[in-house]
C-alpha cells in the first residue's frame, strides 16, 4: 500500500493541470505539493494578460488563468500541501518533503508527476564583468517585488535580454513611474514574443538594441550605470561602439532553466538540449511511473501549451496505474533533432501507445523565412509541413500520425529548411 496513487511535485499551471486530469481519469488519492504559500506558481505574479487564448478561447491575466485551475482543483478530492518543499524523489517513488505544517515526511506513491517549473538564468551564468552592486535583478525577481510585494526595485532601468519576462517588466516598470532606458539583446533577433515587442517596448518608445550586450556593470554599493556595446557576428563586443547608461537598476531576462535538481538526484536521464528529462510521447521519463511536464521538461512560451502537456502527463499517470504499473518494454522510435532544430520533445515515441497521432514540440536554432519542416527516417522523407516563418522564440508543433510513425525505422529526424518565397 502506498500513501498516494499519485504525487504531483509543484502546484503551478503544470502541476494543477496534471492533478486535475488524473482525477478526471479516475484516480482518487492524489497529492499536490507546492513550495509557495499559494497554488498557481509564477502565474500569480504574471498580472499581465494574454493567457488562455488557446485553452479557454479568451484572454486572461496570469492570476485569472491560475484561479480557474485552483477553483477546479478545489472541486475535486485532490489533497494539497502548500508551503512544502520536496527534498527528494526516489526511483521507487518515495517522496521526501518538509513543511512548516507537517514537518518532515516520507510519502510513497505509485506514480509521480514532476512539475517543478523553471528558474531564471543569473548574472553569474552570463559572466558580465564589473562590480557587484545592489540593483541587479532577474526580471522575475523584480516582477515579484512590484506585483506581489508592491515594492519598486528601481527608477532608471536597463534591461538585458529580450525574453518575454524582460519585455513585460519594461512596460510594468514604466507604468509604475520608472524610466526604462533600453532593452539590450545579444542576438540579432528578440527572444520574446512579437506581440510583447509591440505592446511593451514600442507602445512606450523603449529602444530595443539588437546585437548588443552589456560589457560593464558599475557602482560601488548600488548600481550607477552600465556600458552597452554592439556585438559582431561572433557575439563579441565591437570596440569603439560602447555607450554608457546611467541607471540604478539592471533587469536580466537572459533565459530560463528547468529546475531538474530532483530529477537528476533521482537518476533520471536529462536531455542536454532541453535541460529537462528525456521523455516518451506520454511524458513518462525513463523511470517508469515518473512523468514530467511543463517548464521543468521544456521551457514553454505559452501556458496554454503547458496545460495541454500536463493534462497529457496526468492522464498518462492514470493510465499507468490502470495498466497495473507496467515496467517499460515497448519498442520506441527515437526522435532526433536534425538540421536547424534545437531540440524536440518528446525524444521518444512508442507507436503502440498512441491513438491517432503524437504531437511533437521543437524550436529552431535561428529565425527562418518561409520554410518547411521535414520528417525523415533512414534518409526517406515521411512528411513535410510548410511554415510562413520560424523563430527560436516561438515553439513549433507538428502532429505525427500513427501511420507515419509505423513507417519509421527505429528513429526519425526532424529538420527545417527555408524554401523560395
Amino acid at each position, binding site marked *: 500500500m502506498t500513501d498516494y496513487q499519485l504525487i504531483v511535485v509543484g502546484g503551478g499551471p503544470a502541476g494543477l493541470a496534471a492533478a486535475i486530469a488524473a482525477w478526471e481519469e479516475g484516480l482518487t488519492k492524489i497529492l499536490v505539493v507546492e513550495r509557495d504559500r499559494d497554488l498557481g506558481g509564477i502565474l500569480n505574479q504574471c498580472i499581465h494578460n494574454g493567457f488562455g487564448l488557446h485553452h479557454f478561447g479568451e484572454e486572461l491575466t496570469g492570476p485569472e488563468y491560475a484561479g480557474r485551475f485552483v477553483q477546479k482543483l478545489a472541486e475535486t478530492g485532490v489533497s494539497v500541501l502548500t508551503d512544502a518543499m520536496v527534498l527528494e524523489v526516489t526511483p521507487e517513488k518515495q517522496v521526501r518533503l518538509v513543511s512548516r505544517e507537517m514537518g518532515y*515526511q516520507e510519502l510513497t506513491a505509485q506514480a509521480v508527476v514532476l512539475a517543478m517549473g523553471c528558474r531564471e538564468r543569473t548574472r553569474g551564468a552570463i*559572466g558580465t564583468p564589473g*562590480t557587484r552592486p545592489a540593483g541587479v535583478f532577474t526580471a522575475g525577481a523584480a516582477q515579484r*517585488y512590484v506585483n506581489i510585494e508592491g*515594492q*519598486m526595485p528601481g527608477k532608471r532601468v536597463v534591461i538585458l535580454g529580450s525574453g518575454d519576462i524582460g519585455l513585460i517588466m519594461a512596460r510594468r516598470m514604466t507604468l509604475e513611474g520608472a524610466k526604462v532606458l533600453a532593452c539590450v539583446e545579444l542576438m540579432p533577433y528578440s527572444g520574446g514574443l512579437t506581440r510583447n515587442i509591440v505592446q511593451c517596448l514600442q507602445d512606450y518608445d523603449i529602444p530595443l538594441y539588437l546585437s548588443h550586450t552589456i560589457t560593464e556593470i558599475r557602482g560601488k554599493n548600488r548600481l550607477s550605470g552600465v556600458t552597452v556595446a554592439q556585438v559582431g557576428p561572433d557575439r563579441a563586443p565591437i570596440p569603439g561602439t560602447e555607450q554608457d547608461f546611467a541607471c540604478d537598476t539592471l533587469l536580466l531576462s537572459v533565459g530560463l532553466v528547468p529546475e531538474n535538481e530532483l530529477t537528476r538526484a533521482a537518476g533520471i536521464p536529462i536531455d542536454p538540449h532541453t535541460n529537462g528529462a528525456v521523455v516518451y510521447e506520454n511524458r513518462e521519463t525513463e523511470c517508469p511511473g515518473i512523468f514530467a511536464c511543463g517548464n521543468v521538461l521544456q521551457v514553454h512560451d505559452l501556458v496554454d501549451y503547458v496545460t495541454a502537456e500536463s493534462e497529457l502527463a496526468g492522464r498518462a499517470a492514470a493510465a499507468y496505474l490502470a495498466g497495473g504499473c507496467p515496467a517499460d518494454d515497448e519498442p520506441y522510435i527515437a526522435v532526433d533533432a536534425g538540421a536547424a532544430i534545437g531540440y524536440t520533445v518528446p525524444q521518444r515515441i512508442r507507436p503502440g501507445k498512441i491513438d491517432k497521432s503524437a504531437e511533437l514540440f521543437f524550436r529552431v536554432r535561428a529565425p527562418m523565412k518561409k520554410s518547411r519542416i521535414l520528417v525523415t527516417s533512414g534518409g526517406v522523407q515521411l512528411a513535410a509541413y510548410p511554415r510562413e516563418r520560424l523563430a527560436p522564440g516561438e515553439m513549433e508543433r507538428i502532429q505525427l500520425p500513427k501511420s507515419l510513425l509505423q513507417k519509421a525505422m527505429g528513429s526519425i529526424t526532424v529538420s527545417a529548411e527555408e524554401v523560395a518565397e
Partner: protein
Amino acid sequence: MYDVAIVGCGVIGAATAYALARYDAKVVVLEAENDVATGTTKANSAILHAGYDPKPGTKMARLNVEGVALAAEICEALDVPRKACGSLVVAFTEAELPTLQTLLAQGQASGVPGLQLLGGAEARALEPNLSAEAVGALYAPTAAIVSPWDYALAMAEVAVKNGVTLCRNTRVTGIEKTVAGWALETTGGAVSARYIVNAAGLGAEALHNLVAPHRFTTQPNRGEYDLLDKSEGARVNHVVFQCPTAAGKGVLVAPTVHGNCIVGPTAEPVAGEDTATTAAGITALEAAAKKSIPSVNLRATIRSFAGVRANTDDPDFIIETAVPGFIDLAGIRSPGLSAAPAIGLEAVRLLQENGFAAPKKAYFDNTRRVTRFAALPPAEKAALAAKKPAYGRVICRCETVTEGEILDAIHTPIPPVSVDGVKRRTGAGMGRCQGGFCGPRVLELLAKESGLPPEKIPQDKAGSNILLGQTKQGKGE
C-alpha cells in the same frame, strides 16, 4: 577606556579578538563596514595552505605552519566547515620539476608534514581529471579547504560571546596619543584605548601613518575567481595548484566546503579596493583552469567575483610594534588566512611586550554550534521540524536553507543586517539561482525581525539598498 582596540574585523582582527577574549581585559573591535570580514577575507581561494610556499625562516613560513595546525582545532570547536582534502602542485613540463623540488625542500625545512613528490601518472591516479600534460606533482596531505568567512565570523562571535565588544559601521578617522594610551576618532564616536592593534587590511598603511613614520607601501592586487555550480563539485578532489612563477601561485582549481568548485585567482595590480571583475580576467581564468583540468566546465559558473590582496613592498608579513602601544598586523596576504590564528597569538605576545599584563580568564566559552538542516539525516530533520516548525519551511530552494536557520542567524551574537549577511551565515542565496527566489523572502524576514521597512534592508554594505520605495504612493482617488 578599553585596554585594546582592534581596528578591522577581517580574519586577522577576528583571530586577534578571539585570542584576546581569553584575557581579563576590555577589548573592542572597530569595523568600518556593517558586517565582519567584508574585505579580503570574503574573497580569496578559501584554502588553508600546507606551508611549503613561503621561504623558510620568514614569519610567513612559521605562522603558516602554526596557523593551519590551530585552524584544525578551531574549526572543530567552533563548527566551521573545513575539509583536509590535500593539495597538488602540478608541473606541466620537465623544466618545472625543479620548482617542485624547491617547494619540497622549503616545506621540509618549515616542518610541513607528509609532503611527497609524485609522477604524472601517480598524480592522475589521485586526481583523475588532471591534464594528461602533467609530468609531476607535489602532494601535500595537510592542505585543507575552509569557508574563510565562516571562520572569521566564528572567531568574532566567540570573542563577542566572551565579552569582546564589536562596533560595526565604525571607521577610524583619526588617532591622538594620550597620557593613558590612544584617543580614536571614529564614524561611530570617540573611543579610547591603551593599545591599538592595526588589522585594517587594505587600510592598514593609512592607519599606521596616523601614528608612526611611513614604513610600508600597500600594493593592492586583485584576484578574480569563478565559482562553479555543484554539478562541477566533484571535478577535483584536491586543491590543484600550478607551479608558482614570478607572477604568483597561478590559477588553482579546488573543491569548496559547500560542494562547489572554485577557479582562480588572477593577479593584477589595482589602485585600491577595486573588486570589479573584468572580461580579460574571466577569459584568462578559463584558459588557465583548463590547463590543469581540461574537462572543467566554466559554463557552470554561478558567480564571478574578485578580491584584493593587501600586498605591500615588504615580502614578509608586517607583524611588529610600530610605535609603543600600537601593533601592526599588516601586509597579510596569502598565506594570511592559513596563518590567522597564529597571527592572533603573535599579536597578544607583542601586546605583552608593550606592557599588556591582563591575566587569563578563569572561564572561556569556546563553543559554537550551527544547525544546518540540509546536512542532517532524515530522523534528525524530522525531529527538528517537529520541534520548531520554522525548520520545516525551506526559504532557499537551491541550498535547502530553512526559515529556522535564518532566524537562528538573526539571533546570533553578531546578527546579519543585510541580505548578503544572511547569505554568508546560512548559505541562503548562495546557490545556482543566486537569491532570485529567496532574496525577497530573506528581505521580508530581516525587515520583520528588525522592525525596519523593507526599503531600509541593504543587499550588502550600507548604501546597497535593494528597493527604492513602494508602488501606488501617488495621490489617486
